[in-house]
């Protein structure tokens, strides 16, 4: 047996293999393709060509066992596993990381004071915590949503994580982990947000469209946090104070 290197890919970055169809899916694909092929020989003109192309594609899909479209748009393997573990219908899991040119202590100080979250998390209206519980209000695609959660990790200068209560309207779990960047290059923040998208993966695409998708937000929030710590302020291209009311959502 050939040796295999240990997998270094962080969780949330895996994809399905190119051959991503099961036996049943492949058989159905070939059968359906054959039906289309027969239909193609029976119809004339553009319809015949359409049936022919569709039939050919389905047979090729079944025989090869590879569906690149499903691989591109479908759910990710890490997300399916997470949904199963959490008992959610589906899960979106967004890992993001950023390196801050500051010590872990300095980063922790800003991050752990959850009341400050709205200063760099633009879709968080307010946040509070009493040590074991975390409450925050976020702007969802359809208006404000409150989350009540339990803090499941609170290790100073290392890790902060929460899990929303069972039966929440918008189940979401989040985590910030701090690690030293090599060679004294500051602190890596490894953040994860996992949530059960309203309306499944379709809902997730809709959220992305309105830029309210938590993964997109997290990426930007981390950068704003970094700027706040490194530069002492969050950058904006606003020309004047009136414009800041629409910023930073304004790109």
């Amino acid at each position, binding site marked *: 047996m050939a040796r295999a290197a240990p997998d270094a890919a962080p969780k949330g970055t895996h994809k399905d293999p190119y051959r991503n169809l099961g036996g049943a899916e492949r058989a159905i694909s070939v059968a359906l393709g054959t039906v289309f092929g027969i239909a193609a020989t029976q119809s004339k003109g553009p319809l015949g060509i359409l049936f022919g192309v569709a039939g050919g594609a389905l047979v090729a899909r079944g025989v090869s066992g590879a569906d690149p479209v499903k691989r591109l748009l479908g759910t990710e393997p890490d997300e399916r596993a997470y949904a199963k573990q959490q008992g959610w219908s589906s899960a979106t899991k967004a890992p993001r990381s950023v*390196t801050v*040119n500051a010590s872990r202590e300095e980063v922790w100080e800003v991050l752990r004071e959850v009341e400050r979250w709205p200063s760099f998390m633009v879709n968080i209206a307010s946040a509070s915590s009493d040590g074991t519980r975390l409450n925050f209000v976020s702007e969802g695609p359809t208006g404000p949503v409150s989350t009540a959660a339990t803090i499941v990790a609170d290790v100073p200068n290392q890790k902060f994580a929460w899990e929303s209560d069972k039966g929440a309207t918008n189940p979401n779990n989040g985590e910030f982990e701090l690690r030293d960047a090599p060679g004294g*290059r*500051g602190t890596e923040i490894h953040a994860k947000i996992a949530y059960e998208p309203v309306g499944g993966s379709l809902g997730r695409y809709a959220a992305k469209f309105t830029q309210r998708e938590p993964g*997109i937000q997290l*990426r*930007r*929030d981390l*950068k*704003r946090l*970094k*700027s706040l710590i*490194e*530069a*002492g*302020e*969050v*950058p*904006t*291209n*606003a*020309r*004047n*104070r*009136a*414009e*800041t009311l629409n*910023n*930073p*959502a*304004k*790109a």
Partner: protein
Amino acid sequence: MRAVTWHGKHDVRVDNVPDPEIVNPRDAVIKITSTAICGSDLHLYDAVIPTMMKGDIMGHEFMGEVVDVGSAHRNGDAVGTALKVGQRVVIPFTIACGNCFFCEKSMTSLCDNSNPAENQDIAETLMGHSPSGLFGYSHMTGGYAGGQAEYVRVPYADVGPMVVPDHLSDEQVLFLTDIFPTGYMAAEQCDIERGDTVAVWGAGPVGQFAIRSAFMLGAERVIAIDHRPARLALAADAGAECLNFETVHIIDALNAMTGGRGPDRCIDAVGMEAHGLGIDNIIDRVKVATGLGTDRPHAFREAIIACRKGGTVSVPGVYGGLLDNVPFGAAMNKGLSIRTGQTHVHRYLKPLLARIEAGDIDPRVIISHILPLKDAPMAYKNFKDNQDEFRKVVLKP
């Protein structure tokens, strides 16, 4: 206030827009006394840089007087040097925070923080990582209002602006904001050695400063390549040997001039919109016109082929997207070093001001026109179509 605004391809206007204000603690507001049009602005004028929006204020080469400062300048919270109202300053076109990994290494055009988080999305999608924010240069690099205007808001103003001495005129120091450092960095990146011949494609403002800087940094010979006679004449004034690419086989000429070795160092000061009717450039023109391409890298291709084995190709010329048919096999097999980047202006301000004060260079020779701001549309048109006469335009708001 009045400002030069972008409205689409070959459509810039002078509009009335709201005055800028202090927004963040480290900001300053500058009343602009002089501002210039850059070759980089032509890429915007020609609409080949993506993510411009109607109404964007243009301009990234500007200087003026501080008229307002944010709280950090007053209460001792400044990261760099606090500014005071009334000071006369030049402002780097790259915006930099002064505190991130890149700023600490004085690679200020790569600042992690100055491009706001939302704008970084576009840059990251196209380029993998986002460069710094720039004044007046599309939303991909920040969406900041530029300085071809009466006033401008300057973020991180405790790190960028440099106070200039009163005995130097605006025209003497204005180009510290961009093209002098840009030409200088292009030459510096060549790592010029004794006896080196440096070839410079493009005798525009950037090329002119690259030529002069190459001599300052010890080049034995400098060869300038362009097709605008008056621009080549200005290059000759600085001691460059000149080639007109419309009437000369550039590769043959460069080999003949260097005993078959090729120039040791090659500088592409042309960028993504090469002129000329070479076959590759005609194909590029068709591709760009039909949306199949973004850049016309004829000069870059030629520099790679011309360059001596083991030499350096330094690229201050701006490129926006994907470059087709670049002879990378030649670059690899000849062991070339390719050096490039938006200019790390901050690191050059003081040393180049000293060069000007010492009389090593007079930046004023580049200027062809000094015009009121309201003439900006005419100036843009001529800077594009009438390049021999319109070499470098300074606007006075």
